[in-house]
């Protein structure tokens, strides 16, 4: 498969959140604001990139029977490294992600890519797949974060120095969007729209 196809695959045809529907609980929880969503997306991409590369490099060393525990050790190591790094150098992001940072270990996206791609392909394609899937995840959670924050809270880029009150300070906010239930409904709508657009493009190709 061409590298560019692998990359586009992660963002469109097999988007982990919008098409594969994996790793959804952390999606609901961290998309409360734009910055939270974006940070989570980039964190997942970083871990995905690292774990895909390492697992691909080790794919001939890891015996098939213990591949799952081995993958988990690799993924957990990368998540812990990220945790230490963020806690020491980017404390605001560390605090924003909170418990969801260590939970990246059990984000199904990462384990799924390790099992279905990295363990079966060489390093460069695995790297591109990691990048593509990670950015696809980031795209989905950032858009969700923007919608939930702008319409649910009335702000954009809240939590940073660049926060804007989109509808003015008196905007009461649509509480439903801030709650996980609303996020779930919003996600459903997003998935539907995304897939309709994808299918249309498939037909015209």
């Amino acid at each position, binding site marked *: 498969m061409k590298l560019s196809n692998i990359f586009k695959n992660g963002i469109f045809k097999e988007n982990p959140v919008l098409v594969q529907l994996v790793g959804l609980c952390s999606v609901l929880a961290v998309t409360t604001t734009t910055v939270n969503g974006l940070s989570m997306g980039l964190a997942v991409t970083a871990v995905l990139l690292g774990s895909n590369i390492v697992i691909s490099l080790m794919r001939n060393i890891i015996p098939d029977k213990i591949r799952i525990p*081995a993958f988990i*050790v690799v993924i957990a190591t990368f998540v812990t*490294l990220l945790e230490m790094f963020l806690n*020491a150098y980017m*404390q605001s992001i560390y605090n924003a992600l909170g418990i969801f940072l260590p939970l990246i270990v059990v984000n199904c996206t990462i384990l799924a890519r390790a099992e279905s791609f990295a363990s079966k392909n060489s390093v460069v394609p695995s790297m591109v797949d990691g990048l593509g899937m990670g950015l696809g995840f980031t795209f989905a959670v950032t858009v969700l974060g923007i919608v939930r924050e702008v319409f649910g809270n009335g702000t954009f880029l809240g939590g940073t120095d660049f926060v804007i009150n989109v509808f003015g300070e008196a905007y009461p906010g649509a509480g439903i969007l801030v709650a996980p239930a609303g996020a779930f409904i919003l996600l459903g709508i997003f998935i539907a729209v995304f897939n309709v657009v994808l299918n249309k493009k498939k037909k015209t190709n």
Partner: protein
Amino acid sequence: MDMKETLRLGIILLLISAVAAGILAFSNEITGPIIAEREREEAFGAFLEIFPEADDFVEIDEDLLAEIQSTNGNINGVLEAKSGDQTIGYAFQVSAGGYGGAVNTIAGISTADNTVAGIRIGTHSETPNLGDAIEKPNFTDSYVGKTTTEKLVAVGSPSAENEVLSISGATISSFAVLSGVNDANDAYLRYFTDMEVEPIIEETEEEKQARFFNELFADADEFTPVEESVLDTIMADNRFVQEIFEANAGGEVIGYVFKTISGGYGGEIPVMTGINVDGTLTGIKVGANSETPGLGTKVEEADFTDSFVGKGTEEALVPVGTPSSDNEVQLISGATVSTDGVLYGVNGAREAFINLITQ
């Protein structure tokens, strides 16, 4: 799958994990100190509010802290507030029992004039919107500038230099803070000043315990805990016994002290029971409890505890109106539950004694 295969898989997994652990350890070496330093600065937040002119807070010498804690177990930590090279005060981290649990307080004492520099309330489980009013400035400010050389008292409208605020409707919470600050002031006087003042805490819990030991066995020169294995064996069958000490006189065991905890009316009652090697009781001591003041607390008084002296261990002890025989002790009318609570403990000590000497 055969043994060799299992072993091979296990070793490979071990190697992968070992490499991962090594990488993580290396990363921790680098990031650990940075994180620790930042957390330390965050913790200084409350201390800086009490001592705004300080630029550093240094923990006191370990041995000194241990000595302080042996006099008063409520003191969790002591830090020196420094401005440049000068010590401007001390911050005591103390805790005391409140309404919902332990109340942690930081009491800052200014060395310039030996007054309270300020207090801050730490973690606690006091009632929201009621007991947690102790966090508010109007409460904590009432401590600023107060004396450390006299015991502080909490009143509705504090004015004198030894009076602080008691919040109506939250007296237990207010007293928890008061008790902690008095403990801090007491420790400050004893260990950090040369002043010739009477300690403001007449007798700390630790001093009381030491006194109890000596009152139970006046002839003893040493009290040593029994071996752990012996204690474990006895505790396996005994719900009440927590600790057992041998009372020694001139190298010989003359008796035992049993520390028990049993349930009374208002909560747990700690009891110390002294039993001679010949099976007679030397007496009992009732420790800090939550029994009804003036009623259940009569179990602490001599009228009750003296009735245990010289009693035997052959039969279980029972409370009666007019005790005479070897297993009868004084009943306190109107406080039967408290009396029974103490007796569970003493009888528990009795059973432990019998168990102990037959080993």
